[in-house]
């Protein structure tokens, strides 16, 4: 005998009832007001089990018997039809919960750590080269309108640097990707009175160097090393990769957070920010490696790279101290440098390649 409540078809009114099943496969529902419903047990429809949620059994006439006694329902229905779904089985077996937990954590971790970058890289390189141009169309105009000013460098300086770049540096990437047409742009970039030293690459092959960067660079090698780093971004199609990675992360997070009630969303912003900053750090190391390898080929000491990077970061921190009074807006400077960290690893790699350079090697392990 299973205790429960009985509703007439489509009605909210309810009355206490008892359900029983006999050996012949017939059920009996006895209502409190002595009404009795009988029928073939196999004609009953029972809702799928979900935790300890109330169970609904629909009779042939559309009336409904509701009970919380899930275990008893499972027991009697088991003999006639399979009511306990595979999913409920998983949900109630601790071992499977543990397995689910481990698989979930492991696959979430590997998905973000390796899956996303790997797939994005494959997709980025599988797309036709022209995609790179497509995604940077309009970017240069945007940057010119909102970030950059015209350069203050003399025509001679510009010509000298450009000529050297087009003749000596740019051709180095032909063996990797022969469709890239590099174009060097000189711009001045100011933020709150501070001149920003920087070099940027657009996926299309446009490379922008700022006045302050040229000013801080002491040797041609230093300029070349940074330009090679930027070329590394272009050759490895990092712009495209970032875009694909971003899409992946957003879609994945949306799915995992279930029916986003707004609660989980709060952590998502932070999570995706940390994840994408880790990806961009990966891109930086890849570009570094590319630059170092090329530098060995053309006999430039990889130390030049760490030297100029160091000088730029020291300059920025001095500027930061100088303008500490008005500390608005410079969060964006912080952001920029957090994706370009002068980490130990980065310097170590530069030193390692520098050793190879001193030994006269062109390939470093």
């Amino acid at each position, binding site marked *: 005998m299973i205790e429960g*409540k009985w*509703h007439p078809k*489509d*009605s*909210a*009114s*309810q009355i206490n009832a008892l359900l029983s099943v006999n050996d012949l496969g017939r059920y009996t529902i006895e209502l409190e007001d002595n009404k009795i419903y009988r029928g073939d047990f196999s004609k009953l429809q029972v809702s799928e089990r*979900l*935790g*300890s*949620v*109330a169970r609904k059994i629909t009779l042939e006439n559309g009336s*409904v018997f*509701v009970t919380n006694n899930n275990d008893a329902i499972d027991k009697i229905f088991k003999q006639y039809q399979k009511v306990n779904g595979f*999913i409920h089985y*998983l*949900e*109630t077996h601790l071992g*499977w*919960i543990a397995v*689910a*937990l481990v*698989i*979930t954590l492991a*696959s979430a971790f590997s998905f973000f750590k390796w899956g996303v970058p790997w797939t994005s890289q494959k997709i980025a390189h599988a797309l036709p080269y022209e995609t790179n141009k*497509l995604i940077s*169309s*309009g970017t240069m105009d945007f940057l010119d309108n909102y970030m950059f000013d015209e350069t203050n460098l003399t025509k001679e300086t510009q010509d000298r640097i450009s000529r050297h770049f087009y003749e000596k540096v740019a051709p180095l990437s032909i063996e990797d990707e022969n469709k890239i047409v590099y174009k060097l742009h000189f711009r001045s970039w100011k933020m709150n009175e501070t001149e920003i030293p920087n070099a940027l690459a657009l996926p299309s092959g446009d490379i922008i160097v700022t006045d302050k960067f040229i000013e801080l660079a002491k040797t041609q090698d230093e300029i070349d090393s940074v330009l090679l780093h930027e070329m590394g971004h272009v050759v490895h199609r990092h712009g495209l990769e970032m*875009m694909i990675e*971003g*899409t992946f992360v*957003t*879609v994945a997070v*949306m*799915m*995992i957070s*279930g*029916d986003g*009630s*707004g*609660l*989980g969303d*709060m*952590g998502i912003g*932070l999570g995706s920010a*940390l994840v994408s*900053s880790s990806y961009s750090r990966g891109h930086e190391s890849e570009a570094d490696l590319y630059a170092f390898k090329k530098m060995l080929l053309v006999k430039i000491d990889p130390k030049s790279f760490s030297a100029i990077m160091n000088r730029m*970061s020291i300059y*920025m*921190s001095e500027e*930061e*101290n100088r303008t500490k009074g008005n*500390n608005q807006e410079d969060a964006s400077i*912080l*952001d920029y*440098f*957090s994706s370009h*960290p*002068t*980490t130990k690893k980065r310097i170590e790699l530069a030193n390692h390649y520098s050793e190879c350079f001193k030994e006269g090697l062109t390939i470093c392990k």
Partner: protein
Amino acid sequence: MEALKFNGSGSEYFKIWIVNILLTILTIGIYYPWAKVRNRRYFYANSTLSDRNFEYHATGKQLFIGFLIGAVFFILYNILGQVNPALGGILLIIFLLALPWLIWRSLMFNMKVTSFSNVHFAFKGELRRVYTIFLGYPILFFLLISIVGAIASTLMPIIQTADRSILAIVGFIVGFCFMFVYLYFFAFVKKNSTEYFIGNSHYGQGAFQTELETKKFFIIILKTIGISFIPMTVVAVLIGSMRSMVGNPYVGASGFVSGAELLFIIGYFVMIFVMMLIMSYMITRERTYIYENTLLDNKIAFESTLRARDLAWVMVSNIFLIFITVGLAYPWAKVRMAKLMLENTWVDTDIGFDEYISQKQQEVSALGDQIGDAFDVDVGIAL
């Protein structure tokens, strides 16, 4: 009056949740609609009022097609938006134009697949009205503001001869008025949308009624803004002092988290905390006001006893829990929130529900619900 109850538990929901995620991962996302149904079913069926429970009747199959379309749209929007901002903008406009329709469809579908004590809900609002509220009014408001702005700028030369301090005062007053008008408009939309959502909802043969005033919403918004000034100042000071503590964040970034990132994380948490406090105030006041002015069939009354401090506490502690457990505490967080919400929702049960009977309804596809879901459009009316 009797309060609703939530009978689910965090540990039980955890098992359902983790299996959902596992299956979603193993099926590379295809299981998502079925997972969503299980989630919803769990929360609806565990919500009870005088021993009668709610039920969610949608099936994974029903949600699946809408889910596919939603996912494709969402991915397209993301990619196109990055490839070409102009194209992304056009897509966004199309989406905004479709938004009222999505809301409308979603409301119809979700009401239809929800039942309480064996009787289904229904939504019978007009499509035209939802377009008026979410598209017509904003456009009208925008035009009005532009016209006023144009008149003001033509009048500007007249007072240009006056000295600077007068100009500053005039500017201040104009800005202030503009803010007031804007907030009043916000309250106006809130009033109309709430009346539309509730006033067109039905339970069986019974209809919900609600009569609200823009003025009341406006006062709640003004009070919220008044309150938010204090914590905002505190946050500004806090962040400022923390900045000087961290010093040169980007030099010596050798560890796992650099100074800049640490600052970012702390700032993020403080911001969330403050936002929660302010949001809680607004949510609870609006909820109380809406509930006490809502009736079912002109006889069954509602009441909300949700307090701002309780809501803020649960929200903030939930986020903290979720963060330190890298998300694993999510089920407990959700259950806590459901408990708080339901236990502070009161319904007049003296009359009883026995008279209510499900009405015949047309089939509604889950298209609107799922496309909206993909873009995180939250249209459900929280209980």
